[in-house]
């Protein structure tokens, strides 16, 4: 914050003026309505933005989901009731996307489910191992903690480009594979490999965040418990099984639910890395919402809104799950 103090001579007079002006305006108001009602004034700007850009759209979304056509403004859109949902759920067989009217939607759902299962288990597994490793008495713990955390800060576009470059056909990964006698592969054009890399890259980019949460959880376990267990003659495994795991469980649940919520909404990284391809192999639900409403020739806002409600309900369930699993003081 000290860096910003260079700007002080410049910003201070402006701020001072602003503060004085606001004060002039507010003082008579305060005199009239009393101190406690000033709370309304302070909450107002946030409430306005919240109301216009969050609350109102949330309600409007229901209406959009029940209208058809390609016009954006609600008054131009014919009301079609549950037509959009009928479309989305019009399936010969729910287990095979090809039999559905909106096959892309169902591919998106199935791809999302697959992605979520692999990605979340990857994140939980590797962030747990990493947190356990970082919790040991190691040299340069701060450094290693930063190493695993660094990718978290990178933008999804940057992350995707970094890996696109590594994975391209004449890329460094193929070169390494060939050194070890393997065959070079078009990683992002092979359906199974593409899914693998999409999962891998997002685990790579996000695990540091969950590692930190788990590490904080590990460090809050009182050391006396380990002393007690060692007096009882417990070995390392028993320490882990009977002391660490039970006490870490609440944090693990937080991590699990947070990772789930994040994974369900996955979009940007994959969009840049594979564009949803090859074919539609890595196209997830959010990409369907985006493409249907904004990135195709015919903009089906209603269908997009209906699909986003499916996402919204999923998130709601996950959030309730999180609340159920104990009121953790941590949020996010």
């Amino acid at each position, binding site marked *: *914050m000290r860096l910003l103090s260079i700007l002080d001579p410049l910003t201070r007079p402006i701020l001072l003026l602003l503060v004085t002006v606001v*004060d002039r305006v*507010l003082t008579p108001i305060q005199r009239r309505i009393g101190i*406690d009602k*000033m*709370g309304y004034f*302070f*909450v107002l700007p*946030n*409430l306005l*933005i*919240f109301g*216009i*850009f*969050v*609350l*109102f*759209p949330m309600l*409007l*979304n229901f209406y*959009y989901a029940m209208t058809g056509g390609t016009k*954006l403004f*609600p008054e131009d859109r014919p009301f079609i009731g549950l037509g959009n949902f009928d479309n989305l759920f019009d399936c010969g067989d729910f287990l095979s996307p090809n039999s559905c009217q909106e096959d892309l939607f169902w591919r998106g759902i199935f791809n999302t489910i697959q992605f979520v299962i692999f990605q979340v288990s990857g994140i939980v597994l590797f962030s747990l*191992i*990493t947190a356990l490793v970082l919790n*040991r*008495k*190691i040299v340069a713990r*701060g450094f290693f*903690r*930063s*190493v*695993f*955390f*660094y990718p978290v*800060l*990178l*933008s*999804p*576009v*940057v992350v995707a480009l*970094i890996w*696109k*470059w*590594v994975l391209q056909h004449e890329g460094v990964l193929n070169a390494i594979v060939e050194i070890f006698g393997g065959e070079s592969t078009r990683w992002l054009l092979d359906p199974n490999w593409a899914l693998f890399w999409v999962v891998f890259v997002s685990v790579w980019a996000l695990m540091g965040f969950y590692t*930190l*949460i788990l590490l*904080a959880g590990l460090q809050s376990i009182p050391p006396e418990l380990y002393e007690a267990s060692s007096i009882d003659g417990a070995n390392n495994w028993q320490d882990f099984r009977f002391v660490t795991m039970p006490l870490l469980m609440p944090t693990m649940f937080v991590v699990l639910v947070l990772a789930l919520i994040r994974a369900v909404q996955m979009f*940007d990284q994959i969009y*840049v890395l594979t564009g949803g391809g090859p074919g539609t192999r890595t196209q997830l639900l959010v990409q369907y919402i*985006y493409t249907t*409403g*904004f990135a195709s020739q015919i903009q089906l806002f209603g269908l*997009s*809104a209906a699909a*986003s409600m499916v996402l919204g309900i999923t998130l709601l369930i996950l*959030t309730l799950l999180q609340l159920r699993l104990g009121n953790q003081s*941590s*949020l*996010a």
Partner: protein
Amino acid sequence: MAAERMTISQFLANRRGRRRPDTSDLLTYLYLTIGTILMFGPVLWLVASSFKTQAGLVKYPPPLLPYQQVQVEVAGFDKMLPLYEVTLEDGTTQEMAQIRRVGIEARMIDPANPDAGETKVNIRQRTPVEEVKLAWENYLDPLIELDNFDFFTYLKNSIIVTSVATAITLVINSMAAFALSKYQFKGRDAIFVLFISTLMIPITVILVPVFLVITSIGWKNNLWGVIIPGAATPTGIFLLRQYMLTIPDELLDAARIDGASEWHIYWRIILPLARPALAVLAIFSVMWRWNDFLWPLIVLSQNDYFTLQVGLNAFQGELQIQWHYVLAMTVVTLLPITLVFAILQRFITTGIATTGMK
């Protein structure tokens, strides 16, 4: 990895009490080493590659460092000529500059002795002489002139969005948090619950209606359309409110007795005292905004308004990816966040560990 070896020997010397190192320690450091390579390797590879020329990038297998062919000046020629190592007919090798190439035959000249005249050499008999050289032009060209990639505009837009949005978020969130933590008014708790309940409702769920609102206001292709919708962050309100609850009410009462107005109290007492929480929120807001992608992608469809992320995506999505520029610009895009992280590393990691937010 000399540093790695040093840490290992260090840890062999002093570990957990005076216990002798066992396999678990070995595994620990093995994991950390592999982890470090996996986490940093791709980023370093990006940086190293970004200094290679277009010709250097298509080489396979790719060399670790950026090499360029040596160019030499030869008397009698206006242009610099590429230098090759040529195997002559008598089996000796000599460094020669190439004047031009016709089919499989290259006309070479000895730069040290240009008067000796041209020699015809089969192109199989020559290999380029290379040196490690950084291709700064990858960074400089996009800054100066590239038809479809207006770097400075994108950078400017990203900086505007990030700084303005963060400033607005800090002000309105802190005001709301102040109201919700220090005043008794009707509907207060309802408002708080309303704010917090949207914690898990990302903009992804309401893209269409928010897009309508933005379009109605006339903020399509306008940075305000990117800045404002996400400004009322529930995370920020929650964080700041929790922090402000710890500020004693007596402080406020004392100021009131001294005749301070409520605005004064907010500005002079609450904000300075809440500085740690504000700093955490500021860092996160900068991160969110700098990296934001989906919403700007929807709001901004004209090149002039692109943020860095959107511009970079458009640039890399072209039919012929100009990797040498894309790589360099990716490095530039990750640089600010990396610097912030390097400076505030401890602050950020402990901030996340204690608040559990991102």
